[in-house]
């Protein structure tokens, strides 16, 4: 097929506009470079009245918010799903991998709970501690200055706690706990589980004059119309656009297929398919930055085959796609009789829990090697589709009649409104070379691009951790006189399929040995000095922390390195 060329040569082309790509866009354009930012989905601005979702009422949707076209509900900001029309992915043998793709400006920063945790010193050195996996080639001290800058620029609410492996940052003040959170705290502390204020990238106090301050509508999952939460579009790409004075070109609906190389095998841009006309185009650039998400960036590299890179670009080690790993997750729900018959008031609060539990135990004394944290949900939330289903099933805990209709419906619905707490354990898995994504030899997507095939199995490390999560939740609930609403039986103990927590990382992992890793400590391909990966791909291990804050800090550090290396004419 003819590839349509453009004479312009950018300093940098960035593939993907989420956390990693958004940050690179901001730092590189601020430093005077010309940038082409490629996004596979449409433009998105949460303040655009035609796209805005926050402060909508359930009845403004004819399906009352049901997740018919958006798996997490009508008002979930992320355009995407576990499956996309015409863009399949495959699985090997009995692998069950779930891959969330968010095709829009800001990418998957439109899908997340804004939980913004720094990795701690131990999280970079797990092999030294338990002998499993590998250490990162960098440590907390290398990244600390960048975490600090991210905190100050984007904003994170939280509190100083002086916990060694949960480093403090430059926090905005946290919000007071809700009622069910106080119950959680009571039950958890009695069970010896540490509880601290959440660390969320939600602006509880003014951070600059371009962004609003949170007004507690609880709608962060819808992306904030006054930019009081972090999304890569509103907090990184828009400020970059305002500051770039024409140095930034945003290409939306542009699906990148591969990294292009010159006749000597040196990367010199990218090739993409414009979704509007289905034609192939080429962008010339001195530097290529991949930030398409861990698996999508691996796919682009593996599909970038040439005489010089028969195996795909950056893959002389055969490591691209390997060590794919997601957070573990197991969830339970409990009914707390003390929370029945509640007086109602507005407790929407921040768009996530106000309290959480960081990992509080020592794995040396346990039968599984890595930790987890606990997230909770509950309270007097907005009644959306699904509210009131099996409306009085909780009657069974009192031996009361279940079912019926009539006047009792109002009474019993109100009796149980806000009386449940949802528990989510989110943990660290052990990276494994046998968990990977690769190119499926037989399948192409609707753009003609070969698709990924996943191979992934959990081990007993993760299953035993999930068992422990369940036992912890049961203790906490018992301590506050509650009842579990379902059980998670062995052998998997409710462990979610890999991919379901949407924290997948590791596919282009970082290391100092080019034989066992894909990028160096500056996220630069060992095999091509002018290609970088700034999404979750370079993670050596994932910690039990949500990866976004570390993606942002790494991307900032890498972007400064790119600026220096270009100045020195090293790339």
């Amino acid at each position, binding site marked *: 097929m003819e590839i349509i060329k453009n004479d312009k040569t950018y300093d940098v082309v960035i593939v993907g506009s989420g956390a990693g790509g958004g940050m690179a866009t901001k730092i590189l354009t601020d430093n005077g470079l010309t940038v082409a930012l490629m996004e596979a989905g*449409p433009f998105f601005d949460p303040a655009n009245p035609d796209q805005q979702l926050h*402060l909508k009422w359930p009845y403004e949707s004819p399906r009352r918010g049901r997740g018919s076209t958006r798996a997490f509900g009508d008002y979930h900001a992320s355009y995407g799903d576990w499956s996309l029309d015409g863009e399949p992915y495959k699985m090997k043998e009995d692998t069950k991998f779930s891959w969330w793709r968010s095709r829009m400006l800001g990418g998957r920063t439109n899908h997340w709970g804004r939980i913004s945790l720094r990795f701690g010193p131990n999280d970079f050195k797990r092999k030294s501690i338990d002998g499993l996996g590998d250490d990162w080639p960098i440590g907390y001290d290398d990244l600390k200055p960048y975490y600090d800058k991210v905190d100050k620029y984007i904003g994170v609410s939280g509190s100083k706690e002086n916990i060694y492996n949960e480093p403090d940052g430059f926090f905005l003040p946290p919000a007071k706990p809700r009622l069910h959170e106080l119950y959680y705290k009571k039950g958890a502390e009695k069970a010896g589980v540490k509880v601290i204020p959440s660390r969320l990238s939600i602006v509880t106090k003014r951070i600059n004059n371009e962004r609003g301050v949170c007004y507690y509508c609880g709608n962060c999952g819808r992306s904030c119309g006054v930019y009081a939460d972090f999304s890569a579009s509103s907090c990184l790409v*828009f400020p970059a656009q*305002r500051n770039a004075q024409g140095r930034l070109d945003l290409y939306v609906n542009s699906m990148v297929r591969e990294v292009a190389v010159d006749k000597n095998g040196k990367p010199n841009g990218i090739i993409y398919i414009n979704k509007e006309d289905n034609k192939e185009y080429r962008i010339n650039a001195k530097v290529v930055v991949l930030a398409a998400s861990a698996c999508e960036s691996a796919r682009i590299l593996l599909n970038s085959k040439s005489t010089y890179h028969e195996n795909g670009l950056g893959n002389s080690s055969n490591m691209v796609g390997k060590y794919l790993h997601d957070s573990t997750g197991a969830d339970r729900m409990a009914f707390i009789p003390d929370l029945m018959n509640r007086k109602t008031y507005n407790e929407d609060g921040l768009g996530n829990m106000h309290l959480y539990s960081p990992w509080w135990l020592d794995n040396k004394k346990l039968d599984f090697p890595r930790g987890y944290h606990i997230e909770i949900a509950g309270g007097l939330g907005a009644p959306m589709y699904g509210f009131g289903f099996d409306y009085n099933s909780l009657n069974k805990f009192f031996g009361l009649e279940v079912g019926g209709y009539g006047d009792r419906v109002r009474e019993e619905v109100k009796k149980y409104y806000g009386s449940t707490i949802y528990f989510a354990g989110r943990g660290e898995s052990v990276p494994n070379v046998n968990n990977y994504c690769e190119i499926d030899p037989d399948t192409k997507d609707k753009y003609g691009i070969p698709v990924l095939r996943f191979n992934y199995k959990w081990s007993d490390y993760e299953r035993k951790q999930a068992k422990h999560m369940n036992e912890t939740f049961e203790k906490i609930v018992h301590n506050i006189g509650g009842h579990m609403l379902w059980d998670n039986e062995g052998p998997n103990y409710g462990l979610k399929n890999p991919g379901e927590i949407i924290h997948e990382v590791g596919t282009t992992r970082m290391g100092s040995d080019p034989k066992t890793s894909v990028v160096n400590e500056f996220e630069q391909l060992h095999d091509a000095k002018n290609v970088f990966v700034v999404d979750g791909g370079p993670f050596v291990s994932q910690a039990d922390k949500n990866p976004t804050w570390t993606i942002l800090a790494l991307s900032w550090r890498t972007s400064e390195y790119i600026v220096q290396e270009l100045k020195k004419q090293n790339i």
Partner: protein
Amino acid sequence: MNRRDSIKTIVIGSLASGLVLEGCLPKEKETIYKNVWKYKYGRTPEELQRDLELLNQVFFSKEEMNTIRVMANLIVPPTAEGTIEQAEVPEFIEFIVKDAPSYQEVLREGLQWMDATATEKFGNAFVNCSETEQKSILDQVAFANGEKTKEEAFFATMRNLVITGYFSSEVGINDLGYKGNQPNIWDGVPGDVLEAHGMSYDKDWEAKFIDQSKRNDLAEWDEEGNLIT
């Protein structure tokens, strides 16, 4: 450029580039807006198209819709707080069966069963039976315990949709007492609620939380990360 201007530029920029309804002819665009004027809730062009198609289809007959309305009024009887009609529950059910077609068979067959039973027992269609007669039919299927028969599953499904439809409506939300979805300042659980639950905010925790009187002061920190504003 101040904040308001910059937001305006972004909004106008994104609209001007025609991204919201790109690919639609002006005439189609007009029709879409007209049909979904009521439901303006941040849809993508593909989602708008899907809504439009569903809103223009009819699944239930007038008779079926009437039966649904009568039945819904028995499940959530009218009060001064709100009614099934005000909550637009029948319209919601008509939409949801097109949105989620797996509902269609169970509801249609269930409605037929209700009319057949009413005719057999009382010689009338369900809607023409007395309230006592109607309730005697519902009572046969409304208290399922464990494994459900087909008719019990029908009733449970209808009840779920009626209750969810009622409480997710404007009147239902007020009836429930949900007070959120509006700008406000959260400053903790009200004192009387804390007291009623025997809860309090720990003294050593109090200092951690936001002082809402300073929320608009620009955040500044010392070198150790202590907030100084």
